[in-house]
């Protein structure tokens, strides 16, 4: 039962009880990302503060449990951290997801996001997990531009 390794309790928890969902004001940048192959969508806003702080990551979207839970975990990890820290988490998460299940996850960096390790074995689902994370990276870049 391979699925057990993909649908971790923590993922289902975030899916059923998404954290920080909903679009909020104020924000510095808003992006809209789509995964055309499955129709998953996310609209995501970031609000940055002094000292490179991430004050808020707010989002709305539709998609599978993986994409929804990934957005929720992203919200938790990024909000309150610094831009730099959060982007290094994004990088590590991307490396894990694109590793085809061969990459060892760095739990210290990833925190809860390590629960997605099982998704990496399913190439078709990797994009779901990455959707909001890529949107976040994009939004941060735009806020700084």
């Amino acid at each position, binding site marked *: 039962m391979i699925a*057990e390794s993909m649908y971790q309790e923590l993922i289902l928890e975030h899916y059923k009880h998404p954290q920080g969902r909903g679009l909020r004001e104020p924000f510095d940048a808003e992006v809209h990302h789509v995964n055309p192959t499955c*129709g*998953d969508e996310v609209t995501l806003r970031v609000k940055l503060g002094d000292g490179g702080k991430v004050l808020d990551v707010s989002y709305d979207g539709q*998609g599978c*449990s993986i994409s929804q839970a990934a957005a929720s975990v992203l919200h938790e990890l990024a909000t309150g951290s610094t831009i730099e820290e959060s982007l290094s988490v994004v990088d590590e998460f991307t490396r894990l997801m694109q590793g085809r299940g061969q990459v060892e996850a760095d739990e210290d960096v990833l925190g809860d996001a390590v629960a997605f390790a099982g998704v990496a074995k399913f190439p078709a689902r990797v994009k*779901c997990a990455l959707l909001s994370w890529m949107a976040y990276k994009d939004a941060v870049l735009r806020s700084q531009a």
Partner: protein
Amino acid sequence: MSVPSFDVERVRKDFPILSRELPGGRPLVYLDSGNSSQKPAQVIDTMREHLAQHYGNVGRALHALGSESTEAYEAARDKIAAFVGASSRDEIVFTKNASEAINLVAYAFGNPINTDERFRVGPGDEIVITEMEHHSNIVPWQLLAQRTGATLRWFSVTDEGRLSLDNLDELVNERTKIVSIVHQSNVLGTVNSISPILARVREVGALMMIDASQSVPHQRVDVADLDVDFVAFTGHKMLGPSGIGVLWGRRELLEAMPPFLGGGEMIEAVWMDHSTYAPVPHKFEAGTPPIVEAVGLGAAVDYLTSIGMDAIKQHERELTGYTLDALGEIPGLRIVGPRTVIARGGTVSFTLEGIHPHDVGQILDDVFGIAVRVGHHCARPLHLRFGIPATTRASFYLYNTTAEVDALVRGLHHVQKVFG
């Protein structure tokens, strides 16, 4: 005529993959034949035997292997012509898949090389399709419209998943050059009635094409009865291998069309500055064709005939009725498409409230070994029409059983438990 007795357990024994165990000890429950069908040993063995003992290039070679391959390849053409009731074997063009067959026809229109009025297309001319088409019967016509400035129009789909013919007379008119319509929808299962549309097409002097990719595998399709101008279908959905598709076309039209792909075997004579072309069907078969694949498709057609298309249709109809009833009991499950077995095939798409099809498909596969397809099934506009990004689809073939439908139902209950 009584339907020959049909023994699904005996049929299943012909398909080696059906006794395969998936990783983790899951049995395979294959409910994705609308995507691509499995292959009986008869097809696999014919291909292996051909590759191991009879292979040579076709047409060009005089030697023993060349003759054996040519005979096997052309015999496959005969078989397929007979299978779909073509009045001549020369009306069967081998392509690599249904998509190429449709593109072949689309590229005949608005081609500056063409000299036949019926294939002339420009601004003001219209092409008509439907909202329930597979992308392979949408994009070729969009590209044609873009190349020529013609206008693409379409029939809409009702809430029940039927074609709306309310505006038939307005939609198909004197400006229409071609109407191309799916015979059986790969999402809704709907089998479209061709004759009312064809009558109007003939009235206005346009041409008509049928995308029969989902009908030829599952019911007796007779191109003479259909009486349209072009029919496309594809080998891998009808027990044949990948890499082979078929275009049937009226000989007179195939002859009037300009060549599509240029190269070896489609020529009569070549000079550096011009060429003359081979008679149909070879005019449209440039280069070395999918030889072993055609031979495999011939074996598939033999197999289907030996079982009997009427028996297959009847079996799938029973499965479909059983499935519609069983799924109807599941709370929050919404069937997208006709809810009765009338004028529909064995393809059932649905949504589960609050659960994304990707999650449905993944749990079904990972936990139960049930292979369904999830997504928009290459029919995104149809999903947009229903306001949904994706569906879960179970599609049946002669080797499926009611026990497999039961497994699907159990699996869906489990999915609801996980995500409930």
